[in-house]
């Protein structure tokens, strides 16, 4: 594993001085449930994209195409907010994806 930077190499006072560097922090490792989207049911309303706190819903040309698993922390907000009559997202136990 790469050694994390030491006290001489990081900004003082706990400051984060690089805008948008949350992307470098891979919160995907926290996930115990994975959102699985049923493309047949999805109406591409993009509500999940709006609500996802980690910007992990990938959208191309106005359509949801997938989930960024490096950053999706499995909170389930997307599944909860997906319209009631659609319910295109199911949260599946992460263990079910292991060989």
């Amino acid at each position, binding site marked *: 594993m790469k050694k*994390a930077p030491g*006290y001489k190499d990081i900004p003082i006072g706990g*400051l984060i001085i690089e805008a948008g560097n949350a992307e470098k922090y891979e919160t995907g490792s926290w996930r115990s449930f994975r959102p699985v989207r049923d493309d047949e049911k999805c109406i591409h309303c993009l509500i999940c994209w709006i609500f996802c706190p980690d910007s992990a819903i990938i959208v191309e040309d106005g359509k949801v195409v997938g989930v960024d698993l490096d950053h999706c922390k499995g909170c389930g907000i997307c599944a909860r907010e997906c319209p009631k009559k659609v319910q295109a997202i199911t949260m599946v136990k992460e263990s079910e994806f292991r060989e």
Partner: protein
Amino acid sequence: MAKVRALTGNHAVSEAMRQIDPDVVACYPITPQTELMQKFADFYADGLVRTELICVESEHSAMSASVGASAAGARVMTATAANGLALMWEIVYIAASTRLPITMTVVNRALSAPINIHCDHSDSMGCRDTGWIQLYAENSQEAYDHAIMAVRIAEHPDVLLPVMSMLDGFILSHTMERVEILEDEQVKAFIGDYTPLYPLLDVDNPVTYGPLDLQDYYFEHKRQQIGAMENARVVIPEIFAEYGNLSGREFDIFERYKSDDAEVILVCLGSTAGTAKVAIDELRAGGIKAGLVKLRVFRPFPHGELVEALSGARAIAVLDRSASFGAEGGPIHAEIRSALYGRTDIPVYDYIYGLGGRNIFVDDIKNVINLALEGKAGEMNYIGVR
């Protein structure tokens, strides 16, 4: 040229604040500091400062407002005492840990309970491990001088730590003394403009203050703070020397008063040093080689230099104006013994005195020095307690 004025300690510090003209001052009254901020508020009302004066609802808010303003990029000052400092505590620690160069005057007063408005050092000594640099004044002149130098020390790029300057409640804060006030332009030139490193208001270079640190980096950030304190050891004497040239007054990390050839050395800080000098003069007149080391900088503690200054003595007596309950002696004593440990075996006697403003007299100090010299003191002693 400097002007000589008759000022109380509080008024002297408010004059320093007027000359510094900080961007933001957070203001909340508490005895015996109240008059300090009241004077500064007069300057504000009279249009003599450009400061944004924030009248907050508590000391916790005073320090919180200071932290916010300092993070935004402002030069910030505030002042407090005793229980006000205690209420600030949480944010006092955060200010240092966030590396914000705030300066604050603490007018020393005994912490409650029972309630007491008079001087001891329980308030600021309780804060000795918050990561603030600490300066203690013997008289109102020093309180004025320290307030000005504190700005430069705090803002030095190698330091970036807040500075707390102390003066004894009532004994100095409310007593009129001769104080030399520099010209406004001299102070302005000395402190210079403040260029904050990571101002929140610089929207082109956005920064995040106060994110989660956890096991990943918290330890590294503490290690940085320790390093900044070590850097302050180098920076403080430089700034003292520069201000010494400007003011014509001498500043050292601690003052040696007749201690070079002394057989017995008294160590103390604050206004008691003035009384101690009289005691030492009288003892010397009677043929006793007594000396004084008056601490000015308590954080960072100048252990190396003190070993050198104290090693020639046969006995050392320490005066502590605060108790450290359950510890072996008061805070100054613990530091001195720790500094000397393994380097010399000179006996160090501790005297707790002056709690809650109990007076100390020249004869008390002469007695302490005599007992230390004769080896007749216990390890922990008390002056003037019934």
